[in-house]
């Protein structure tokens, strides 16, 4: 297959309904290799639900998700992780009782080979045996991954390295977000989905996070970003998609989208302009 013909991620008519509410309404999206697209929109616009559909945590009612040309609609999240899709969560889902090191090592789980032989049926039993016996190949793999984790944590300066053996529940909110991103990077993702990575961060921390995302983009990583901080969105994104009430209401370069009247209305509130007219009439 000539892979470069396909976009990295391609959504067609993706729809998810909860009862009477259509949280994601016929979304189309193409994300090219190495591209960074930001999804913005008011709270409840369906951005996180869209992420859940792409990463397999939720199944769409209609539409398809293609990853490098391959139909991955409705596959399980563990399958998609193995395919190289990593994500972070809006509310931060670190493993509270695991150390920073172990949290990030979980990110590398899909890359375990020596201890997880790809043998059908008895594979899990071999995994149990190898985990207990630990031949040199397993030890070497574990050691290599630990070194990799340290290298990943070093990207966050002195934020995480000194706390490498501390349980994640003892970290500050911002550090938990960093652990999540480190965990995602440990998967060596081909596609990275970041759900509000700077939520709850102060301006300094936000600037650091923005620099990191820019670095990842420069390294060629394909990124789908949900973010409320518009300045960061404008600086980082190749394209911006605006969602409101499950629908895509605008798409294009940041500066164009920013001045789109539909976008302004979505952010300022529906019917606000209408209400203002009525008020002035009265």
């Amino acid at each position, binding site marked *: 297959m000539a892979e470069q013909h396909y976009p990295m991620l391609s959504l067609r008519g993706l729809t998810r309904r909860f009862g009477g509410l259509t949280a994601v309404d016929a979304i189309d999206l193409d994300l090219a290799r190495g591209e960074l697209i930001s999804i913005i929109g008011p709270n409840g616009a369906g951005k996180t639900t869209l992420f859940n559909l792409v990463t397999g945590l939720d199944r769409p009612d209609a539409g398809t998700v293609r990853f490098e040309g391959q139909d991955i609609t409705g596959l399980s999240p563990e399958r998609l*992780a193995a395919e190289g899709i990593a994500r972070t969560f809006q509310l931060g889902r*670190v*493993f*509270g*009782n695991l150390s920073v090191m172990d949290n990030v090592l979980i990110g590398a789980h899909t890359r375990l080979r020596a201890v997880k032989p790809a043998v059908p049926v008895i594979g899990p039993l071999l995994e149990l045996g190898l985990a207990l016996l*630990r031949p040199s190949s397993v030890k070497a793999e574990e050691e290599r991954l630990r070194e990799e984790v340290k290298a990943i944590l070093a990207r966050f300066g002195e934020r995480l390295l000194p706390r490498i053996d501390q*349980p994640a529940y*003892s970290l500050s909110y911002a550090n938990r977000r960093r652990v999540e991103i480190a965990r995602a990077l440990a*998967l060596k993702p081909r596609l990275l989905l970041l759900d509000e990575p700077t939520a709850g961060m102060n301006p300094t921390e936000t600037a650091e996070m923005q620099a990191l995302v820019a670095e990842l983009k420069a390294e060629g990583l394909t990124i789908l970003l949900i973010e409320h901080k518009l300045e960061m969105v404008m600086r980082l994104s190749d394209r911006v998609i605006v969602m409101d009430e499950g629908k895509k209401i605008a798409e294009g370069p940041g500066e164009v989208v920013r001045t789109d009247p539909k976008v302004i209305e979505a952010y300022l509130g529906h019917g606000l302009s209408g209400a203002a007219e009525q008020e002035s009439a009265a």
Partner: protein
Amino acid sequence: MSSWLDYTINGLIVGNVYALVAVGLALIFGVSRLINFAQGSIYLVGAYIGWVAVVQLHTPLPLTIIVVAAAAAVVGLVIERFGLRPLQNSVRIAPLLATIGISFVLDQLVMLTFSPNPRALPSQLPDVRFQLGGGTIGPLDLLIAGVGITSALLLFVFLRYSKLGWAVRAASQDRDAAMQMGVDVNRVNQAVFGIAAALGGVSGMLVGMYYNQIDTAMSLQATLKGVVAEVVGGAGNVPGAVIGSLLLGLVESYGVAVFGTSYRNLFAFLLLVVVLVLRPNGLFASARQAPPEPLTGTFIAPSRPVRIPRWALAVAAAIFAVLPFFPVSFYVLQTLINAWLLGMLALSLTLVAGTVGQVSLGHAALLAIGAYTSALLSLTLSVPVGLAVIGGGLMSAALGTLLISPSFRLRGHYVSIATLAIGEIVSLVILNWEGVTRGPIGISGIPPLSLFGYDLISPSSVYWFSFAVMVVLALLQGRLLTSHLGRSFRAIRDDDIAARAYGLSLNRYKSLAFIFGGFAAGVSGGIAAHLYSYINHETFNTQQSILALTVVILGGLGNVVGAILGSVALVGLPEVFRIAAEYRILIYGIVLLLLVRFRPQGLLGTI
């Protein structure tokens, strides 16, 4: 043909009784997202209060009903106020464990007050049967139907038209939003527990009258039946609970008609497992629900485990290893042998419940599988005992994991229910599969422990054997926890959604944990079978599952050293203080409650 109508009527009447329990469970679940394992105990209390009222005080029937409802409601309010309200902001495992503890304490209190012997509870109604079509119906049937329908109507009116009823419905839809809007959630909880307890108590009394017999074993059965009905109808769904109850009553009644009485419970639990697997949200749940809210790392209490240096552990192990060389009494060795056997079970449960977060209430079933396998291998196939015990461990690992696998897709309380039901299924299969298990007669003449042809008969040799096996299992488990599987298990426990998003298959890793843990439990059961020389379907019962759970909480969830320390403490201390056997379970229940409230991380901390 007429008998079919009788079975239908019987099914609907029994279903009505289940409905009274299940509706209470559904109300509580709706408001607190909590399955109240103590509901059956309230039902038991109701039956005994009914007995006191009828037999001792000779109250007329309407007054009996009122007395039972009021007294049971008070019990419910006490449980809510002192058992659960203090845990409102605790980790999710806390209220689950608390209701289990409360249930044990209540059951034991009733047993100590009234003795475990069955009592007759006369129905106070004339013993006549009316002809109805091809079947018959008695006044008690009509009373039960009447109470069921009246309670349903009253509940409907309460929920629909009273202000407090609105608050209950609001709180069950969105607790936080309801609080924001000024709903007093404590009052809602009180109302719900009071109503649930009153219904449960009356139900217990009616069942006692229906069978003209009450005994303390009713409690667990009622909890299980109520939970089955509630889950079939969809947890938290009140009308669903009623329909689930009637369905359960009919399934049981027809099952009994076709296969016989001893299969009654088997049908109930099979129905539960089938529904949990096929429609975990119940028969009437909407097709797919919104993904659950993230509950990051809140299932167990975060804590820093106490680090015990290796040399200290080695010294302790050495002291226990040389103990038989000193002039210690047979009694001390016997007590410690029991502690080592319990220690193996606790190792198994601390891995499953603590490390992977699957709070199993059916762990005694793994003991039973190991014990029966080892006993039958050595008796019928003349396998050497040492190998037979290992065979018991392997069978327990394989069969136990297979049986529990339907619960792998469940979370929190549902896992506990499913494992409780699976434990009951194992016990019922042992009772009914006479061709293999010799049914109610049990297996006698099981050969004593032996190793390489030498019988281990002296207390010190049995002591060394069981101690050595436990130490080896503990070392293996310690090694497992430091491998990538250890962190994978704990990741799944802390946040299964995030774990899946990083490629951890829940089925695979929960299976591995149950295989490893099942082996330890099966070995423990196998050794026990050869020590006791006689086992039957009641040798390994729910009380042992609860004891093991208390040990695990006491030592610290997932903590290997803690599991062994907890076993020695809970087996040893009652011996030291010479506590009479009938009070021990009560004390285990109280210890569990105090731990959940004041030291949820246990003695040595969660790992």
